């Protein structure tokens, strides 16, 4: 198992959760493993000792299984390919064939090209990695919403909205108006009510909408109506600066 421990380290495997799943970090696929073996053993890619490499490859596969790593189909496919190449290498060459034909028929050729192709894209990925590093170190001006009059505004987050709502509720509770509404207003009615207001106004204050509220339920109905209108993209909410009063603006009908 000494050998296995070694390989284990090589894998840089890490136990995840209950120790059932192991994530392979070092090797992403069979081609990566082969490239790793070739580099480690300083093997000439144009003359891969296929029997030796196959043996090493299968050894890794065994360790992966021991470690409970889910060996995907492509790993077994590569094992089959290696064994196939190995067996073809063992077939004695027919006498009389010229050197040219021998070269053409090297059973390793396709695998070698595949490995070189893979290494090529690994290098390209390294280049992207470096570029990403550089790009992560620069900033450009973050986009800011600009009002038509040119003043910059801050988008209202859900937290701002909840805070504002909470303030309204608190203010309402402090007033202790226990008047019972003759008719219960519905969210639909409130939406229509706000739409009517925007026929006359382009802008309203969040707090002004709640002034007429006569019950806690009414406050909630107004709040829900606002949320619905935001969802329908009929209005939008903004602040002149963070934690400032919330303004409500009508959004132009998108044609």
């Amino acid at each position, binding site marked *: 198992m000494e050998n296995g421990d070694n390989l284990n380290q090589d894998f840089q495997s890490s136990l995840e959760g209950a120790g059932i799943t192991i994530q392979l970090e070092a090797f992403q696929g069979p081609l990566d493993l082969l490239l790793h073996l070739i580099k480690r053993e300083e093997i000439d890619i144009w003359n891969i000792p296929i029997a030796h490499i196959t043996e090493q490859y299968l050894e890794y596969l065994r360790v992966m299984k021991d470690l409970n790593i889910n060996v995907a189909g492509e790993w077994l496919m590569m094992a089959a390919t290696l064994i196939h190449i190995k067996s073809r290498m063992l077939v004695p060459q027919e006498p009389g064939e010229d050197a040219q034909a021998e070269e053409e028929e090297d059973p390793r050729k396709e695998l070698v090209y595949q490995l*070189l*192709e893979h290494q090529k894209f690994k*290098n390209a990925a390294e280049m992207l990695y470096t570029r990403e590093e550089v790009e992560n170190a620069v900033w450009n*001006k973050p986009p800011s919403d600009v009002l038509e009059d040119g003043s910059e505004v801050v988008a209202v987050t859900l937290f701002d909205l909840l805070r504002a709502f909470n303030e309204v509720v608190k203010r309402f509770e402090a007033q202790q108006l226990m008047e019972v509404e003759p008719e219960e207003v519905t969210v639909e009615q409130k939406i229509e009510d706000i739409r009517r207001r925007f026929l006359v106004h382009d802008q309203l204050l969040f707090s002004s909408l709640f002034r007429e509220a006569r019950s806690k339920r009414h406050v909630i109905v107004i709040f829900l109506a606002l949320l619905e209108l935001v969802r329908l993209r009929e209005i939008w909410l903004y602040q002149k600066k963070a934690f400032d009063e919330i303004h409500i603006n009508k959004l132009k009908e998108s044609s």
Partner: protein
Amino acid sequence: MQAILEAIIYVAEDPVKMEQLKEVFPEESAPDIENALRSLVESFNARPGGMLIREVAGGYRMTTRPEHHEQIRAYLKTRPGAKLSMAALETLAVIAYKQPVTLAEILAIRGKKSSTALQTLLERKMVAIVGRKPVVGRPILYGTSKEFLIHFGLNSLADLPTLEEFAQIAGEQL
């Protein structure tokens, strides 16, 4: 004009393109705008300031200089953003150089399934569906997006080193 160009590049959200500048200066000829732009970039980047004008995704964009990233990050109190995994970068490299490309073609080059990496790239808008290959099954073709160029600070795909360069390095490595 240079001062105006500088101001426009400053307020722009996306890299500013020549076509947009032509609209701003209808009286000026395209070569004149280009010349003004070129000397602006040259003089702006030559001064020892904190900003740079860079050519990104076919346009001009003002950014901070990379060498100041530590102090900027300290001020903004941010950590570096989530980087793409090596698997995602490899998949992206294949797409960038082989586009338009199908998932099966990516598999052939990477020698392993790449659907998870591809999903990540689609979610992060680095990659987009560009069509379907006119073969049996009409598999989806993928290509890189403008976001890809911006993310990696590229002006165009032509900015990427050629694959031959990587092949040469690969030959030396193996």
